[in-house]
């Protein structure tokens, strides 16, 4: 029933697009997994869309559909966008991977950009993502210093490589500064559901967690952290309204430069299929202001870590690192290759629990 309403929504959106001067603007569509007002993941993608509008003015027209479920519904929404004249479509969630490629195969003249995926079946599909794990390393470092119960909570969405990478990276860098640290992971199987996210946060807090990380899109865990008087990190967006406490820093995704660049390339005909994966260095991942709740020396060491990642002198996955079962993954000084990271489906040594399948 929800799907029906979404299709209706897509239809309504499409109805408002008529240009009379004969000069057709370049039409760019965005498919969002949550609402633009989530103040997290989707909010940042929509900031990217607005940046595209600012950059090209009347030469572009943008449309978006929010709250599109991952799966077959997404395919309908994308097809509808193409039929309504979209020249380029950004699909901004991992679960749109099959749908994006299926629709792209049907419409070779339309360009598709899929966020966080790895499937590019036809030449008109590009993928792009940010190296969120670089940001996770920095906040993991801070969390390791800040926890007093030595228990960090992690609200995870779906067991996909992007999320697993984040857990591993955060744990690795927390353990580096605090060998006794333990990570509790709760999988909520949703990107956006404030009530469930809040419940997950409370379940973790009841288990003694005093620093909370999230890989979901709403600010509900921040509110729960605030109520319980524990610390948290903004996710995907700065979530600065929860600073200085509980939010002591954040990982911010900045999609705007990428969106402006790719739409520009598409408009002047230089767009080519690509697999973009950028981190702190190029600015696709940013670390939000560290508040004064964090001791000054920790702020300094976290900043140093961030800078070493940005200039490429340090890679968050540098050996020796073992897998969860104790077998060797990376030897001393060895750096993880992008292929392994992109498909990461295992925990590293020390993370407890099993990855659900």
């Amino acid at each position, binding site marked *: 029933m929800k799907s029906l309403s979404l299709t209706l929504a897509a239809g309504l959106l499409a109805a408002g697009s008529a240009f009379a001067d004969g000069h057709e603007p370049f039409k760019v569509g965005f498919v969002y997994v949550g609402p633009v007002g989530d103040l997290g993941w989707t909010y940042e993608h929509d900031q990217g869309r607005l940046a595209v509008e600012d950059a090209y003015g009347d030469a572009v027209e943008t449309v978006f559909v929010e709250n599109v479920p991952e799966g077959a519904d997404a395919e309908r929404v994308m097809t509808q966008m193409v039929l309504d004249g979209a020249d380029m479509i950004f699909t901004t969630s991992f679960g749109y991977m099959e749908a994006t490629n299926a629709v792209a195969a049907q419409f070779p003249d339309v360009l598709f950009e899929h966020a966080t995926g790895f499937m590019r079946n036809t030449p008109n599909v590009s993928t792009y993502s940010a190296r969120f794990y670089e940001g996770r390393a920095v906040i993991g470092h801070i969390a390791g210093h800040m926890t007093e119960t030595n228990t960090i909570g992690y609200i995870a969405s779906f067991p996909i490589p992007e999320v697993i990478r984040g857990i591993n990276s955060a744990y690795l860098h927390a353990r580096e500064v605090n060998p006794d640290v333990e990570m509790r992971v709760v999988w909520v199987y949703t990107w956006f559901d*404030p009530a469930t996210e809040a419940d997950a946060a409370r379940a973790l807090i009841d288990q003694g967690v005093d620093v909370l990380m999230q890989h979901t899109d709403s600010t*509900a865990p921040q509110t729960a952290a605030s109520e319980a008087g524990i610390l948290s990190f903004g996710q995907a967006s700065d979530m600065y309204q929860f600073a200085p406490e509980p939010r002591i820093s954040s990982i911010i995704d900045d999609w705007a430069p990428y969106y402006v660049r790719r739409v520009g390339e598409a408009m002047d005909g230089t767009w080519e299929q690509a697999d973009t994966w950028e981190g702190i260095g190029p600015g696709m991942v940013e670390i939000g202001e560290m508040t004064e709740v964090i001791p000054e020396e920790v702020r300094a060491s976290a900043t140093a870590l961030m800078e070493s990642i940005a200039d490429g002198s340090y890679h968050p996955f540098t050996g020796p690192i073992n897998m969860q079962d104790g077998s060797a993954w990376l030897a001393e000084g060895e750096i993880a290759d992008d292929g392994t990271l992109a498909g990461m489906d295992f925990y590293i040594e020390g993370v407890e*629990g099993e990855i659900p399948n």
Partner: protein
Amino acid sequence: MLIDPVTLIAALIGASTPILLAAIGELVVEKSGVLNLGVEGMMITGAICGFVVTVNTGSPWLGFVAGALGAAALSSLFALLTQVLLSNQVATGLALTLFGLGISALLGESYTGINPPLTPKLFPEAMQQLPVAGPIIFGHDLMVYLSVGLVAGVAFFLRRTRAGLILRAVGESHDAAHALGYKVVTVRAAAILFGGACAGLGGAYLSLVRVPSWTEGMTAGAGWIALAIVVFASWRPWRALIGAYLFGGIAALQLRLQAAQIEIPVALLDASPYLVTILVLVVLSSNKGRANAGAPAALGRVFHASG
């Protein structure tokens, strides 16, 4: 570390209250023969109305009243369209959900990232500190007790009162009820408004107690679960309570099992309320030989006095 059953039960009661409130309202609506699929839209309207009023007045109780009134106002639109203008109930209900999601996003634009004043617990601190009974029985706010009271009230109303009998008669056969001189449209409109107010209370509970903050689209499907619970309950109030606590309980339980690092198949547990709903439907239909056992006979049908 194990799970503390006391905090689990306390958590599940809180987690279930929004869907219970919405479900009990929708149950009355459906008992009168009207299918309102706009629960999601009414809930989110209640969530934002309650939130705005609470933030501006500082009183959660005024907020709950505003949530109920706001959602009831939205449902009056549904009543007007379906009862007076005889529009299709399914399409109108879906439109109501879309409208509610849209208007709540608009109203709530400047209210994101604000913490509302906390809703106080009903009983004094000393009673909440009692072992076991403290957190489970005395550890809640007024709305939790009100939701259970509402279930009892609706059960009594439907089974034991003349007005309840009339409402059920309208839901079973509007033509017969009309022939007996009952005002079908008035009864149904009243039921729709009641359903709207209940959904609004449920929404306000989400934004004021359960989350508590405002985020666009924050109901995230709770309205649809409330609709499923009505079917699960086969239109009986106490079963709706069991259904809501079952749905809420399993959700709370699985999160806690994970946090305690107890190995469980998460996806299976998450899907189990839906599996139970299907099972209940199968059992009900085999017992009574009808797929929609317990459903009001005139559910979803348009009534016109001439016809």
